[in-house]
């Protein structure tokens, strides 16, 4: 289910058993991660999950207590940041305010002793690539947030680094601009074939951009996999709750063999497809995505169906979100397309809701 190594790509970055603690606080607990050539991997997690520490350790701004980091086969665990040949985009862009856009982009090339003519050519190319041709003579403060972002991206990629790191680069942008920049970043990354590690706390952003996502919490990688694997088959309770919306319900296994079913803590009996090896009486968590629950015309139209009262309706434009209460008092959230064939439901109305056994996921 969760793949630790990308099978079809040559390995570029390999983090093995990285540990880091600040006094009593464990920032990283034996983290291992492998990133393939041209791959876009996102470190997703809440603040304090260790994602930024891991990124800084890869960049060389943070030493790890244990473990190794290899880049392109070379051990860089103890190499200074400037020797790692890694491009990084900082959260606040970190553009040099006293240098023009062109001087900013030229900086890493100058530090590498590239010839003047070659620098001019590559800076020009980089500016064109991020659609900022003609902006070379401007100062960073004369640019908008989105433009500064692109300059930072150009500066971090102009010297053809082995790896591109991005630390929550879109958090300062407004929603519309953020969506544009996300698409642009993905295009640029694929066009240049850049191996990329991206840090964010925004799960939508992670799902949109990534080849694979590493969901992190408390200094550990909870799950590593493709966006759809993470969303459809969360490895545990934390991942299910953090990535996407989910109805998380406590349940217990009843019966044995082919006749196994689940009993919710609130009393409902559910038809479920349980993997083998679950004995009766075992406690677990059910994950039910809001879009998996449907309105039913009558009870029994799905393998699990219940009578419910609509408690709340939230109109979100293309979707509508409903909160319904079952007879036992259990509340569930449904998400339905506004343009669907459903007739509108109002708070206070009664309705039947249901889902198939295969719509549910079980996590420890």
């Amino acid at each position, binding site marked *: 289910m969760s793949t630790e190594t990308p099978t079809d790509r040559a390995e570029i970055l390999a983090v093995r058993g990285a540990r880091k603690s600040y006094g009593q606080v464990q920032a990283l607990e034996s983290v291992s991660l492998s990133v393939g050539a041209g791959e876009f991997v996102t470190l997703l997690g809440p603040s304090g999950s260790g994602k930024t520490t891991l990124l800084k350790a890869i960049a060389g701004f943070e030493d790890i207590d244990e473990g190794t980091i290899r880049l392109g086969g070379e051990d860089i665990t103890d190499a200074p940041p400037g020797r790692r040949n890694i491009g990084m985009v900082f959260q606040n862009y970190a553009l040099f305010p006293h240098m023009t856009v062109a001087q900013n982009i030229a*900086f890493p090339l100058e*530090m590498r002793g590239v010839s003047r003519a070659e620098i001019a050519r590559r800076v020009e190319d980089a500016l064109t690539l991020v659609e900022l041709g003609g902006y070379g003579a401007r100062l960073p403060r004369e640019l908008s947030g989105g433009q500064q972002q692109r300059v930072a991206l150009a500066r971090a990629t102009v010297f053809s680094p082995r790896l591109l790191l991005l630390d929550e680069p879109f958090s300062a942008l407004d929603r519309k601009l953020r969506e544009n920049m996300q698409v642009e970043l993905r295009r640029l990354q694929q066009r240049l074939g850049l191996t990329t590690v991206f840090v964010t706390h925004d799960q939508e952003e992670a799902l949109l951009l990534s080849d694979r996502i590493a969901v992190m919490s408390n200094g550990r990688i909870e799950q590593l996999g493709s966006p759809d694997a993470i969303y459809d088959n969360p490895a545990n309770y934390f991942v299910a709750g953090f990535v996407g919306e989910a109805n998380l319900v406590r349940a217990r296994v009843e019966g044995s063999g082919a006749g196994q079913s689940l009993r919710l803590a609130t009393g409902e009996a559910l038809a479920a497809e349980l993997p083998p090896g679950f004995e009766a009486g075992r406690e677990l968590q059910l994950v039910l995505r809001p879009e998996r629950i449907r309105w039913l015309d009558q009870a029994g139209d799905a393998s699990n169906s219940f009578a419910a009262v609509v408690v709340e309706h939230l109109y979100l434009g293309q979707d509508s979100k409903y909160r319904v209460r079952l007879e036992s008092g259990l509340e569930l959230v449904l998400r339905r397309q506004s343009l669907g064939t459903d007739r509108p439901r109002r708070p206070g109305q009664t309705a039947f809701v249901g889902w198939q056994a295969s719509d549910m996921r079980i996590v420890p």
Partner: protein
Amino acid sequence: MSTIALPFKARSNEGRQQRFYLLLAAPGFLLLAVLFAFPLFDLMRLSVENGSLSHYHQVLFGEVYVLVFANTVKIAIVVTLLCAVLGYPVAHFLATAPRWWALFGLLCVVLPFWTSLLVRTYAWMILLGNNGIINRLLVGSGLVERPLPLMHNELGVTIGMVHVLLPYFVFPVYAVMARVDRTLLSAAEGLGAPPWQILRRIYLPLTFPGVVAGCTLVFILALGFFITPALLGGGKVMMLALLIEQQVSQMLNWGLASALCMVLVAAILLSYWAMKQSARRGTA
């Protein structure tokens, strides 16, 4: 961006901005007008006594006066450069050291700053004199046969002035350094810049306004310095302020003293303007 934290600039800006502040500043202005501007105009009047420019002619073309003026500027430049070289790392330490170290360092800079100038100058005399601590140690340990001439010369004056003026350089530079975004230095490092390139290409340009402000303060104060050169120079090092005092108290030549004062004021205004220009260019 290119604001230099000089007190007189801030004051005049506030005064212009709002009437309320103007009102608050009025007593200060009045005090300055009575105690500073008026005597200054009086000095100007004295310097052109009887409508003659003879004093200025003497000051600007008399060999002695030109020599003293050149010597004053030379000492001021040396002191400013030494303050910059010594003070820049100190300011950096104060701006970046862990909390308690920074506090301790700040105390080390501020404590002498709060101590009387006279006391500090006498302290240097105790250290540097022929019978002073340093020479007794050197002679006693057999490193030198005779006491080194550390005082009553330009060396002593320079040492004393650098010590007194160092905080004036450190504070404005520290203020600018504390505001520099540290991720810029990390970014430069990550882009492959070695430490000296980070200093030359990033840190120095970003802290340049502070350096200019500090140099301006030190240079201007050094031009008109009196007590330290008087005591540590022992009458053998002539600077402009000493010459003025001599003209007033020994020669009773108020006219010439006033003309020297005017030249000093002009030199200060000129250096202030020049440094402001360079600060503007440096951060453009």
